[in-house]
Every structure is written in structure tokens, then in C-alpha cells.
């Protein structure tokens, strides 16, 4: 590997700085690696660390909402300034530094080369650079907490003029660092995305045709393409906003002839496809898991693929629904209301296909399967509540209330956590060569799912009763302190505490299984896709017996002509005829 040799030479060149040989090995292996699996782990662990930050911020501000004015254990009193910074950080961290890196970067990096049967990404050094930029972006974000004025508190949407002028936001440095962090993060994923698409195009195992690629790989590719096609205008907007903040230009400043709506125009052009950028990989993970654990061929593979592409295409036409009441031409709302409701069709169809896949199966309720099924069950509620917001007339009332919050948490929580837990529990044996503890896994599952619903169902009710977003103390609003409303806020917060407590079970299980887990064989789930052909964990280069050749599609479970109920993609045999 030229890249390896290069990295090694580089490390040797710096050897005289006093690091021992052992240290170099460690750095080369874990920190300066170009191996796609290691970069995937780096993304995953960074994402998990950032999830702790996101979890801590939500703990602090939910405590303030339920018990206004108390000194939150571990944080202290939450002032109005703190509250804004906390919700902003929670939103941006959970989307940009948890969902994106874990779902796309970590799983994409780890799975794509293994699932398409090659030894590494096409541009391994670009891949390493991508992670390094991502790490810097996370550090910049965290640094913004410690500068004068504190972290940015203008919400993750960062609407100017609030975000553009220090005299409005009162966080002169925090806003710039936040913007810089987001921009860097986009660059990182841009590099990653280029790598994913090129790799899948050029490095697939011999014999792997378009419809032999596992759905999760397709989904990550479509998501990467969506991301790359939509991020440009936002980066342009970010540069303009940065100029406004630091150089005194007036792109978004009405006093200088600028237009604040312009930012929303650029932001939501990216902001909405972003939802599908994280949704599609989650959908892909679920497809892999439900087929394995119901021992069924995926119902209508091509339909899933086409609905994913259709979702991607439509996602470029729905974004202005975030601006219904934001001062755009009201006639535009009509068009976007139509497109928004239309996008429910491919997404609903994907859910129908997954439900249909269960029909006639032999369903094993293992921990990953429970997570995957929970994803479908919970995501359905997130999806249908979106209809209320897409219907322009109803959105007049629901816009910027807790109903919106509850709605998108019913989509994002399944995406960023339920699907990720499904993926981690499913691929853990492959990643680390050990089995996770099943009892702890099931305990974690039930604790998380039940408390999750107890957080957000109350928020639907609160939103319908008029609670608006980003308010640190509802005692200022007499109509929002009617009997029962504070009880619902307390219920949601208590459920959140339970949910956070159950994550300790997961972390304990993860660490325990990493060291003490039962050893896993190469293919513990009897799955078909190529990554299970590699040893667990796969060595550098992935397939020591040589790169596999693909003979059939990825979902040939319970084939009538076969004794076994699975038929791995790499096994030779006359299967092409059986496939069609």
C-alpha cells in the first residue's frame, strides 16, 4: 500500500522527536491510520463522545424547563443565555456531530469496502484528512464554550441578523466559531462523500452488479450524493455570514440593503435534504437487519431503491416548508405544501415494503432485530405527524411549537439512536470479534424505547396547547401555566433522566463486551453480505483469502433450492437464474 508506506515513512521521519517505537505504532495504528475500518471507528467514537455532550446539554435545559430556576446538579443555574446556548449546542451537535458522523461517516467507512468486497477506500489519505478536519471542527465547536460571551445561542438554524451582528447575539466570538465549526464539518463530509461514491463505483467485487449491492450501501451513496448536491449553497451562505460577522459586509443586514430571508433561502435548501441524508442510511441499516432476522428476501429490492432515489429527488423540492410563516411569498407555500405531502409517498412506501418483508418470515427477536423493528414502529409516528406540519394551513398554528420538536424527535431519535443501536449491536461481532451481552442489550432496549415515548408524547400535547420553542421559563406566559402543563413538562424531563440512565447500561455493555465478550465467529448471524465472509474482526486488507467474487444478490434467504436458509453472496453456484 503506497499510502501505508507513506504514512510509515512520515512517522519515521519524526521519530527523533523522542517518541519510542511503540508510540509510533500506536499513533500509526489508531490515530494516523488510513485503514477504512479504523477511520470508521474514529468517527464512531468521536460521534459517541459528542453524543454525551448532546445528552448533557439536553439534561441541563430540560431540568430548567421542568424545575425553573433550580441549580441543576452538575451544571448549576441555567440562565437565559445559557439556555439558548444549550439548545443551540444540543441541536447542532446531535445533527452535525452525532447523526452525520455515526450514520454516514462511521458506518459508511466501516461497511462500504467490506460490503462491496474490496480492501480499502479509493482515496485512503483523503479519508484520513476527512476525519482530521472533522475532529478539528468538533474541537472548534467545544472551544466556542470558553471564549468571551460564551457559545452561540441563536439556534441551530442561525438566522441573521441575530447571528450576523454581535450587538444582537451578544456572542461575538461564539457565533463565528460555531459557523466555522459547521463549515469545517461540511468540508470533512464532502471529502468523505467523494470517497464513498468513487469507491462504490470503481472498487466493487467482480460480479457485483447494480442490484447486487446491499441496500445500506445504496442508501449511504444516495445520502452522500444528496449531501454533496445540497451543501454548496449553505457553504456559500456560511461564507457570506462569516463576512458579515467579521468584515462588516451587509449581505444579510437590511440596514445595508441586505436581506435576512436570503439566509433562510440558502440554509433550508440544505437543511431539508439533510433530513433525508441521515434518514436514508438508517433505512438501509433496518433493511439489512430485518432481512437477516426474519430470514426473508427483501420485499421488492428495486422498489426500495427507486423510492430512495425518488425521496432524494423530491427532497430538493420541499425545503421552503420551513419558511411557510417566515415571510416568503404566501403563494410559494402552496407549491411547497404539495411537494411536502408528496414526499410522504416514497417514504411511506419504504415503510410498507419493510412491513411486507416480515410477512411469511421466521422472525428472531434478537437485540438488533428489536431495534430495527422499533425503528419502523417509532418512525411511523414521526412520519405521520409531519403531515400536520406539511399541511400549510395547520402549520400556521404548529410552526415553532413543541409539536414540531416532538415530530422531528420521532424521526431523528429513531434515525440517530435507534438505527445506530441496531447497527452497533448487529455489526459489533464483526467490528470487534466479540458478542455483546444479550441480557444487558435487551434491558437497554426496553428502557430506552419506553422512556423515549414518555418524553415526546407529552411534548406533542404541550405543543398542541401552545408551548413555543426555545423558551427558558414558561412562568412568563400565563396561558402556558394552566393546570397540568407543568406536570407534562416534568413528566418529559423525568422520562429523559430515565432514558439517559439507561444509556449507562449500553456503555457498560459495550465496554464489557469489548474485553470480556464471548468470541464471535466470522458469520454469527448466518448473513449473506460480504462483510460476514471476512474474519471477525477483519484484518488490514479485509479479506486475507483474497477478494471475493459475487454471484448473487444480497438477500437470498430461505431459498427453496437450498438446504441452508441463507446463501452468501460470494459462494459459487448457479444462482443467477434463481434470482430472477
Amino acid at each position: 500500500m503506497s499510502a501505508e508506506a507513506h504514512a510509515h515513512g512520515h512517522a519515521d521521519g519524526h521519530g527523533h522527536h523522542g517518541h519510542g517505537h511503540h508510540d509510533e505504532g500506536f499513533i500509526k495504528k489508531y490515530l494516523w491510520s488510513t485503514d477504512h475500518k479504523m477511520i470508521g471507528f474514529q468517527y464512531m467514537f468521536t460521534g459517541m463522545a459528542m453524543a454525551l455532550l448532546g445528552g448533557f446539554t439536553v439534561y441541563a435545559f430540560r431540568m430548567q424547563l421542568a424545575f425553573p430556576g433550580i441549580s441543576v446538579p452538575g451544571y448549576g443555574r441555567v440562565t437565559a443565555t445559557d439556555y439558548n446556548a444549550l439548545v443551540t449546542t444540543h441541536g447542532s451537535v446531535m445533527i452535525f456531530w452525532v447523526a452525520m458522523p455515526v450514520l454516514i461517516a462511521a458506518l459508511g467507512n466501516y461497511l462500504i469496502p467490506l460490503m462491496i468486497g474490496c480492501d480499502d477506500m479509493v482515496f485512503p489519505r483523503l479519508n484520513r484528512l476527512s476525519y482530521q478536519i472533522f475532529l478539528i471542527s468538533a474541537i472548534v465547536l467545544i472551544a466556542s464554550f470558553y471564549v468571551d460571551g460564551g457559545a452561540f445561542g441563536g439556534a441551530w438554524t442561525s438566522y441573521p441578523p441575530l447571528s450576523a451582528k454581535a450587538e444582537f447575539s451578544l456572542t461575538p466570538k461564539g457565533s463565528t466559531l460555531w459557523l466555522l465549526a459547521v463549515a469545517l464539518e461540511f468540508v470533512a463530509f464532502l471529502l468523505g462523500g467523494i470517497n464513498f461514491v468513487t469507491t462504490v463505483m470503481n472498487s466493487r467485487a467482480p460480479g457485483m452488479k447494480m442490484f447486487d449491492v446491499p441496500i445500506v450501501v445504496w442508501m449511504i451513496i444516495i445520502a452522500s450524493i444528496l449531501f454533496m448536491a445540497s451543501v454548496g449553497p449553505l457553504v456559500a451562505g456560511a461564507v457570506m455570514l462569516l463576512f458579515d460577522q467579521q468584515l462588516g459586509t451587509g449581505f444579510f443586514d437590511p440596514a445595508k440593503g441586505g436581506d435576512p430571508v436570503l439566509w433562510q433561502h440558502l440554509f433550508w435548501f440544505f437543511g431539508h435534504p439533510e433530513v433525508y441524508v441521515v434518514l436514508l442510511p438508517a433505512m438501509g441499516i433496518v433493511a439489512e437487519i430485518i432481512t437477516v432476522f426474519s430470514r426473508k428476501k427483501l420485499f421488492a429490492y428495486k422498489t426500495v431503491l427507486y423510492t430512495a432515489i425518488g425521496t432524494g429527488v423530491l427532497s430538493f423540492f420541499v425545503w421552503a416548508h420551513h419558511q411557510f410563516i417566515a415571510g416568503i411569498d404566501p403563494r410559494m407555500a402552496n407549491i411547497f405544501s404539495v411537494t411536502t405531502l408528496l414526499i410522504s409517498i416514497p417514504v411511506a412506501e419504504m415503510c410498507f415494503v419493510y412491513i411486507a418483508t416480515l410477512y411469511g418470515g421466521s422472525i428472531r427477536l434478537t437485540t438488533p432485530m428489536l431495534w430495527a423493528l422499533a425503528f419502523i414502529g417509532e418512525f411511523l409516528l414521526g412520519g405521520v405527524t409531519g403531515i400536520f406540519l406539511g399541511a400549510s394551513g395547520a402549520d400556521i398554528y404548529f410552526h415553532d411549537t413543541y409539536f414540531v420538536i416532538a415530530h422531528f424527535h420521532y424521526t431523528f431519535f429513531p434515525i440517530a439512536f435507534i438505527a445506530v443501536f441496531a447497527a452497533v449491536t448487529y455489526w459489533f461481532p464483526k467490528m470487534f470479534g466479540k458478542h455483546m451481552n444479550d441480557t444487558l442489550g435487551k434491558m437497554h432496549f426496553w428502557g430506552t424505547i419506553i422512556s423515549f415515548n414518555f418524553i415526546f408524547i407529552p411534548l406533542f400535547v404541550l405543543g398542541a396547547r401552545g408551548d413555543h420553542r426555545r423558551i427558558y421559563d414558561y412562568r412568563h406566559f400565563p396561558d402556558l401555566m394552566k393546570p397540568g402543563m407543568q406536570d407534562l413538562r416534568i413528566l418529559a424531563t423525568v422520562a429523559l433522566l430515565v432514558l439517559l440512565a439507561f444509556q449507562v447500561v449500553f456503555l457498560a455493555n459495550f465496554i464489557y463486551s469489548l474485553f470480556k465478550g464471548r468470541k464471535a465467529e466470522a458469520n454469527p448471524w448466518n448473513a449473506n453480505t460480504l462483510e460476514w465472509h471476512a474474519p471477525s474482526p477483519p484484518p488490514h486488507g479485509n479479506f486475507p483469502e483474497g477478494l471475493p467474487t459475487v454471484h448473487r444478490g444480497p438477500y437470498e434467504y430461505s431459498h427453496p433450492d437450498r438446504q441452508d436458509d441463507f446463501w452468501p453472496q460470494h459462494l459459487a453456484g448457479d444462482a443467477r437464474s434463481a434470482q430472477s
Partner: protein
Amino acid sequence: MLEHYLESASTFSGDIDNLIIMVAVIVGFWFLLAEFVFIGLILKFKAQPGVKAKYVAGEDPKEKRWVAWPHYATLIFDVMIIVAAIRVWHHVKQEMPPADETVRVIAQQWAWTFVHPGADGKLDTADDISVVDELHVQKDKTYHFELLSRDVLHSFSVPVFRLKQDAIPGRVIKGWFKPTMTGQFDVQCTEICGIGHGIMPARIIIDTPERHAQWVAANTTGGAAPQNAGGTK
């Protein structure tokens, strides 16, 4: 459903509530049906020793109809919701019935200033009544509002009217409402506007025509400079 929790105090709030209920019924039915089928399939097809799963590719039109029919149903119900939603939207946001009176709503960090036209019913005259954080209107009269912002984005939201509109600095945004009941209710700012976003509550006071006239008379003494009738606190 909603008026049980939150008063319905404008001519269009009932329309919005009905739309929400219609969506809730349609969506709720399909949601429950999907969950029912989903959980039913999981329970019915739990793994049993010696029973092999069926081999269904799902590419055959006969099999595909199991997803195609729900798909058509989704489309039909989507169209129904779209038509209803756009009718309401058109009524609330696109058409403006002729105004009996116009008020000016000025948002700034972090307070509302409401400019009432006073006894002559016209803005920008000497008897305008400017009040911080209190909007005085009367029942059964059509109001237009002119929404302005002095600094950042704000959003003028009156939950009992089911009304919400962002304020944008540099622009004058117009809208309307017609109160149908008397009382005092919250006015919220629903767009994050900085540190004081959470302490930007105002009240809307809807009076009978007689009491409103009294309030106007009481506040136009002198009739020269606009005066401040005090905030909520």
C-alpha cells in the same frame, strides 16, 4: 379537540382546528392500521423450529399490490389533505378582508410595541396610542396588522387566534384577524431573537366595543405624544 385546551378566538381559528382534526383522523387511522399490521406480522411469524421462511421476491405485480394499494391510498389522502390545507392557508394568509381598523405591531429585542390608531381609526395621526406589550382590540371587528421589526427576526404569534407571522427587519408584513370572543390572552414571540427571547411575552386584550371605546378615550387625553400604558408586569 384544540379548543378544549386553548380558546378559539378568531374567525379562522376554527378552520385551522378543523383542518388539524381532519388530518388527525386520516393520519391516525392509517398510523394505527400500519402499526396493527406491523405488530400482527411480528407476532404471527415468530420463528418456530422446523418452519422455514417463505421465499418472496416481491417483484411480481401480484405480490407488489400489497404495497401498491397502500401507496395509492396514501396519494388519495394526501390530495385530500392538500386541498383542505391550501383552502385554509388561502383564507388566512392570502386573502385579506377589508379592514375596520389597522394596528401596527413593532417587535424589538425584547418587547412588543403596539400602535393603535386611536379614536380617528387611522395610524400615523396625533391620537395614535402606543402601548408596550399590550394589544387592545375589540370583538367582531376585522383588524389588519402591519408587522415590523427593529432589529432581528421575531415572530408574532397569538395562539388563541391560531395566528403566526414572522417579523423581518426592513420589511412591513401585513396580515389580518377578527376576534370572536373577549378575554385576555398570550402573545408570543416564536422566533428566537436573542437572550431575552423567553421574556418577551405580551398580552392581547379583547374587549367589547363599549369597553374598548372607554380604553381608547382614557388613553387619548391630551392627544399629542403617544404614551405608554405600561407592560404586563
